[in-house]
């Protein structure tokens, strides 16, 4: 019999404490907790209250070193392709064109003075596939591929997820390719001529 009443008593007591807690929260609902980020010094001095943020109007605090959407500072990119090989899910696609000898000056140097040897007409990152693991940013020699703390970049059309960082328009790229092709043809022609002369000399020499 005592267990029967004990049951009812503990039931009532624990339900009362539970109700007390929720009522305390109910009456505490007049305060709203601020939207300071974790990297803010007085994050824990904010008042305890409603802690939800209204997302589109109020921004969710992300720290400065947040690793989210990729950004490639194309001027510093030397087109080495390390990131393309390092990416586990191969969501980076890149095309490079060799810089012709006389264009070196035009092509310019990277910010730390390294001479760039490739034009990069196409440098696409498929942000839908990218899982921001950061493998590419660590292998990048000139550290031009960096994470930005932008974490909400939804689109209506799936193709907008492919970000283009290439700095050559299609026409310029065509021009560069044609020029390279000519240079190669010329170099080939010279080599054959030289080989033919060398052949002639050796015949002549005997």
């Amino acid at each position, binding site marked *: 019999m005592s267990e029967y009443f004990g*049951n009812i008593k*503990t*039931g009532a*007591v*624990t*339900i009362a*404490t*539970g109700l007390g*807690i*929720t009522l305390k929260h109910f009456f505490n609902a007049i305060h709203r907790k601020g939207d300071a*980020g*974790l*990297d803010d*010094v007085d*994050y*824990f001095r904010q008042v305890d209250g409603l*802690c939800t943020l209204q997302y589109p109007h109020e921004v969710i*605090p*992300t*720290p400065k*070193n*947040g*690793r*989210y959407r990729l950004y490639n500072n194309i001027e510093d990119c030397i087109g080495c392709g390390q990131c393309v090989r*390092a990416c*586990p899910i191969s969501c980076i696609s890149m095309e490079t064109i060799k810089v012709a000898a006389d264009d070196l000056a035009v092509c310019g140097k990277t910010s730390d003075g390294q001479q760039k040897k490739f034009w990069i007409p196409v440098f696409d990152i498929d942000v839908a596939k990218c*899982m*921001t*693991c*950061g*493998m590419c940013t*660590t292998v990048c020699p000139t550290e031009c591929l960096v*994470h930005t703390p932008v974490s909400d970049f939804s689109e209506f059309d799936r193709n907008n997820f492919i970000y283009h960082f290439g700095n050559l328009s299609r026409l310029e790229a065509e021009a560069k390719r044609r020029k390279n092709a000519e240079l190669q043809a010329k170099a080939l022609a010279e080599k054959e001529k030289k080989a033919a002369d060398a052949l002639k000399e050796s015949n002549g020499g005997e």
Partner: protein
Amino acid sequence: MQELDIAGLGSVRVTRKNDNVVVIEKDLATEQMVLAMGPQHPSTHGVLKLECLTDGEVVTEAEPYLGYLHRCFEKCCENVDYPAIVPYTDRMDYLSGMNSELAYALTVEKLLDIEIPRRVEFIRVIVAELNRIASHLVAIGTYGIDLGAFTPFLFCFRDREIILGLLEWASGARMLYNYIWIGGLAYDVPSDFLKRVREFVAYFRPKAVELSNLLTENEIFVKRTRGIGIMPADVAINYGWSGPMLRGSGVKWDLRRNDPYSVYPELDFNVPVPDGKVSDVGDCLSRHLVRAWEMDESLKIIEQCIDKMPTAEGFNPRSAIPKRIRPKAGEVYARAENPRGELGFYILSDGKSTKPLRCKARSSCFVNLSAMKDLSKGQLIPDLVAIIGSIDIVLGEVDR
């Protein structure tokens, strides 16, 4: 009384009262209903299908079906080199990414036999314990929802949000970090990160007490979980249970204490085991209590790590990371104490390539779930939900 088989009536019992009164009795044909607690069900914590044979409310037999979230972790590991596997380990048990990374990093470091700077070890322990608290908060919160109490879930997620903010501040990402690399860390923690973590510990202690008042000590919650799904200690060991499940059955076994790794031997924390006073040993309530007690232990560990943390000048988190990871031919099995149990990695390398020949992940939830078939015999459906909640499975790790 005779047993006859009359055409059209099936087996009947015929008794002759007197010459013109004959009583024919026939059993009501009842058959068990197959109920698919299917891959899409609010309380299976993910895509798990439990096909139950039910007789009214009582479940006579429940057969778990897996594989709905199978992403071929082991096949991917064989095509990717060692450092690139780290992001995959996060995605196995996505509620405790840091712990899974720690387990994988330990295994490969054991294979490579390299020395890790002490500060890296301490930072790893802090972020792993923070992640353990966050994972236990999800476990406790969803267990409340399974039994109908919605408010504790939101209190848990409010506090978990702070931990995710801390980990985002340290590693740059909220849940899937790729932060613990083989031989070191991706980045050092920001300057006043440790001060903020200490403030968090002070903030979280009263909140944990409030949570236990609201949920764990609630009489209805105790009534719904005490004495249900009892698993004796030796059967638990035979089933390969580990972590809070094993400790819930009364076995004092914690890998951080019994098979120490990283800097855990230097830290003192006790391994909470239920003693049968508040809950029967081995039932759902004791598993839940072990998780709640473990959160307090993790807070203690974090505080000790902050005190013992070596200074940061001249510290490069990537100092001990080998340029080219090409381990010698051999194999290794090492493991770490994940919030859900023992996560072990068996890695076989042939010494020639930078890719593992075989990388098997021994997942804790996969093994904990294997006992579901025996645990669920003869339980009511609401109890089945309570048992699944107490096993606290994450289907990412079960199906790999």
